[in-house]
């Protein structure tokens, strides 16, 4: 029950994009086409999940016993940067078409705040007890990744349809309309607040 609650909260209620404003760059930038949004979400999911698990282990099994908690930002960001390098090499080798369509947004996953924030979230300690046990931590990172993917892919389909049909004032074309759509999606997602 606890696990279900953590998962639903991370996917719908405290959605990383719509209610915590994380990863806006890739959310706005890589969603002109649904295919690149799906690729982006998968690549990001990989980095978020493994980044979270490695950061959690690094923090509680190495940094805390050595009293080096203040190093967490520096060490987490290095973990994430190496993971992104790995994903980049993997995609370049096996899915070159996706590598091309993601372009600059792939290396930029390093500076995607979703990854770092999720890593910092799982390393949070209230009092003396870690906020997450290993199991709930895995649930949380997977759910966060799903939350990002869900919203990004839905958003990319809206963008695709809008690009073909809508006649918009010039000033609203591009980022302004995308932000307004995101706002409307956020209002829609507010409805999930009553669930928990």
């Amino acid at each position, binding site marked *: 029950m606890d696990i279900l609650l953590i998962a639903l909260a991370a996917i719908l209620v405290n959605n990383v994009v719509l209610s915590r404003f994380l990863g806006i760059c890739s959310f706005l930038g890589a969603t002109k086409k649904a295919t690149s949004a799906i690729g982006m979400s998968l690549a990001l999911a990989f980095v978020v999940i493994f980044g979270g698990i490695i950061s959690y282990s690094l923090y509680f099994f190495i940094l805390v016993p050595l009293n080096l908690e203040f190093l967490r930002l520096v060490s987490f960001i*290095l973990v994430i940067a190496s993971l992104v390098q790995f994903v980049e090499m993997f995609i370049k080798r096996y899915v070159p078409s996706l590598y091309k369509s993601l372009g600059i947004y792939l*290396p930029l996953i390093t500076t995607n705040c979703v990854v770092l924030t999720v890593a910092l979230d799982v390393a949070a300690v209230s009092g003396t007890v870690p906020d997450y046990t290993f199991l709930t931590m895995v649930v949380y990172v997977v759910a966060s990744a799903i939350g990002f993917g869900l919203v990004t892919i839905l958003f990319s389909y809206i963008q695709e349809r809008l690009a073909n049909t809508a006649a918009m004032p010039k000033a609203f074309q591009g980022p302004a309309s995308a932000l307004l759509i995101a*706002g409307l999606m956020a*209002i829609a997602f*507010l409805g999930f607040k009553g669930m928990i």
Partner: protein
Amino acid sequence: MKKLRIILDGAFKNNSTFIMLLGLCPVLATTSGVSSALGMGLAMLAVIIVSNVVVSLIRHLIPNEIRIPVMIVIIATIVTVVEMLMKAYLPDLAANLGVYLSIIVVNCVIFARAESFALKNGVLDSFLDAIGTGLGFILSVFLLGFARELVGTGAIDFKSFINGETLFLVRIFPQQYAISIFVENSGAFIMLGLLVALIAYLVPQVGAWKENRAKAKAQNSLKPNLETEAK
């Protein structure tokens, strides 16, 4: 004059928020009120100045292939220091900004300035560029925070960074007419979208106005010449 241009370009022409649309996460997350927006702006200004100066100082020592990890570590160190200082001296602001303070580490604006400016320019120019970019950021978050707080609550409530007490409160219109969605999360997207559209509308207008003025000036300076020639 050229130095002033660097600051102005950083603040207006290359405004990170409204023109380049970079690093929007903290912009959206910390602008539900004027005071937290200003706090975020000041933290960004501090980090960007130190990072630009440090990167520019050691730019000849960084091998090109590993410049990104090097910059990440530099920025992460600076943010750790700023975070510790803020927790010690401005505890209420630090609590308000929460995780958004830590994730300045991955802010694209700071990266973009380090990568595209500080790596190629001298220390003084990089410092001025950081000031310009930082001021542009402060201006943007202040504008957004002001618009959101005003429409969302009908008043501007400026809180102290140290203990969260209200320093001054100016009520513009009664609470009951406020549209509270604008101080909530979804309102952040909508207000930013509206402001981006407004600026996308204004920029060409200002450009046209400047051109007209330049033309008028050129004609005015031509006129006396023509008159003397006619004589």
